[in-house]
């Protein structure tokens, strides 16, 4: 018999349409219990649609979605996902009751989650009076109150300060350590590097997929960096400097090779897709 630790959730050949627009096309994605997978992409890439399809709130036009029963699914939507006119405690209690926790279980679980999220001091505060980061931590606490098997988060760190982002990722890692399969949609590629696997979406199609190391290793050519924009190769700004992709592995004048990260890999993949002959 397959134990929970071996379960895989995700989708195969998923296509989602909104009217005549294809939001996702032939996307295959899997996440194992106890691991964190990141879905990365720019605006309109299809991240939210993928998370919603995994959650079951949008209907696939083709393909298969595999998810646990709703009682064992946790979800943090891109919207607030919390009730602003309830207190922190009331929000957590509602989530716990919705997922069938008994009064005793609820008391223990709410106490533990408040401690873990650092919200204990704010438990009687109305959510409307919380900061953005605190709200996101509460939304995450609500989503894990019932210890779900699959935890889906749609851009939980967007608009959140760096300290809160780090804390949210600590909580995500903790949920995975407890055995949950965690899917995080994000626009931040630096965050994606913390995940066990990454799916980069572009205009509804999978651009890159695999572990961060696999994605980096699969990037052809060479990424170089220099103080000025090099001629003759596709380039992009990184801070005050310029990076460029050399398809043939040569080093343009005035640049030197750098070890690439996920952001570079995603940009290169995008360039290869937009300029197939450059590859």
């Amino acid at each position: 018999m397959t134990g929970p630790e071996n379960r895989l959730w995700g989708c195969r050949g998923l296509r989602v349409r909104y009217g005549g627009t294809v939001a996702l096309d032939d996307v295959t994605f899997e996440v194992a219990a106890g691991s964190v997978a990141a879905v990365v992409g720019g605006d309109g890439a299809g991240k939210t649609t993928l998370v919603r399809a995994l959650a079951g709130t949008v209907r696939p036009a083709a393909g298969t979605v595999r998810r646990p029963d709703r009682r064992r699914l946790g979800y943090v939507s891109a919207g607030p996902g919390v009730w602003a006119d309830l207190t922190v405690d009331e929000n957590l209690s509602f989530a716990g009751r919705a997922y069938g926790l008994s009064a005793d279980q609820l008391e223990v679980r709410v106490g533990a989650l408040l401690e873990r999220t650092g919200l204990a001091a704010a438990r009687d505060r109305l959510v409307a009076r919380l900061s953005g980061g605190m709200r996101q931590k509460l939304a995450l606490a609500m989503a894990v109150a019932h210890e779900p098997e699959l935890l889906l988060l749609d851009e939980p760190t967007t608009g959140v300060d760096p300290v809160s982002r780090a804390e949210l990722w600590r909580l995500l890692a903790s949920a995975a350590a407890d055995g949950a399969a965690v899917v995080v949609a994000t626009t931040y590629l630096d965050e994606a590097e913390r995940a066990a696997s990454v799916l980069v979406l572009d205009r509804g199609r999978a651009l890159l997929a695999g572990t961060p190391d696999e994605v980096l290793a699969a990037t052809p050519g060479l990424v170089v960096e220099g103080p000025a924009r090099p001629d003759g190769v596709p380039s992009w700004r990184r801070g005050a400097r310029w990076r460029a992709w050399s398809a043939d592995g040569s080093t343009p004048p005035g640049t030197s090779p750098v070890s690439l990260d996920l952001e570079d890999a995603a940009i290169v993949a995008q360039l290869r897709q937009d300029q197939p002959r450059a590859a």
Partner: protein
Amino acid sequence: MWAMAMKEFRQMRRDRRTLAMMILLPVLLLVVFGYAASFDVDRVKTVVVGPQAEQAAAALPDRLDVIRTAPGEGRRDAVEALRDAEAAVAIVTGDGQPQVLVDGADLFSARSVVTELRGRPELPAPQVLFNPGLETSAIMVPGLMGVVLVFVGTIATALGVVRERQSGTLEQLAVMPFRARDVLVGKLLPYLGVAVVDLAVIVAVGVLLFNVPFAGSPLVFALGALLFLFVTVGIGVLISTVSETQGQAIQLAIMTMLPQILLSGLIFPLQAMAAGVRWIGYLLPLTYFVQVARGVMVRGAPFEALVFPLAMLAVLGAVVFGLSVARFRRDLAPAGRRHDPGQAGDAGQDETAPARAGAR
């Protein structure tokens, strides 16, 4: 200034619902309400009873529209005919001068008959029953209770549900292991509770402050009020399913409330309206609540006399609520879940795209 005006005009042009309300609705309302706005009752339903019923009926003025003559019936039957709203006037013939009984709960009919008969000394003086002083408050307050229930039932419900959508929490509810009916009923119960408390308070205020009689059965009244609430809450949910924002919900709620207030017989008597708009009144729930409330409170009408308006409220409730639940369910579970949250197996579930949707 022009930049501001142009921006506003562009926004207005894209908000087609508001634009339609601003341009078409006033015209529509003026035409409909223009035909409805009349207090003049030309024909008053009349029953004539007693041994000389036939002769008396033949001698009545044109305004009294004789719908039934019953020589074998007496005063008691005549009073029951008024109580059950079969007629607004009953003529009781016998050995002496005929008695003219008028239903004071049918205020405008009663006033027109009383005025006419007082100007004709050869006819007997009318006796007004149920609302002897022809008090407007005795008639308006029971109907206004319906308006208060519309406010609570329709507007509060619509706003409550739309607030979930607008704040993004409806999506959260959709993922939680609730059935659509759990969400809907759970969401509506507090509003229904508040509406019931409201109802008790306004009945008490009506009776104690405005001296409105409460002649009939509180149970029949409660039944009518609950059925009416059922419809108004259903309209509220229906509005919420077609509104993205609370502003849109309020616009639509007002569009359902105005006709109810003006075409239900609450203010203008239905029998005074042009036939072309009167039928609209017969589609509105407040019309039937007004009949039940006035019937029970003012006339003391029994359940049997109010079966039709109660049944109409039940039918309207079933239609509106059924429609709103179907739409709400679609909003809440767009993926068309096939598994009841309490029934799915431990191994999770695979959702495969429907064959037709996936076909090219």
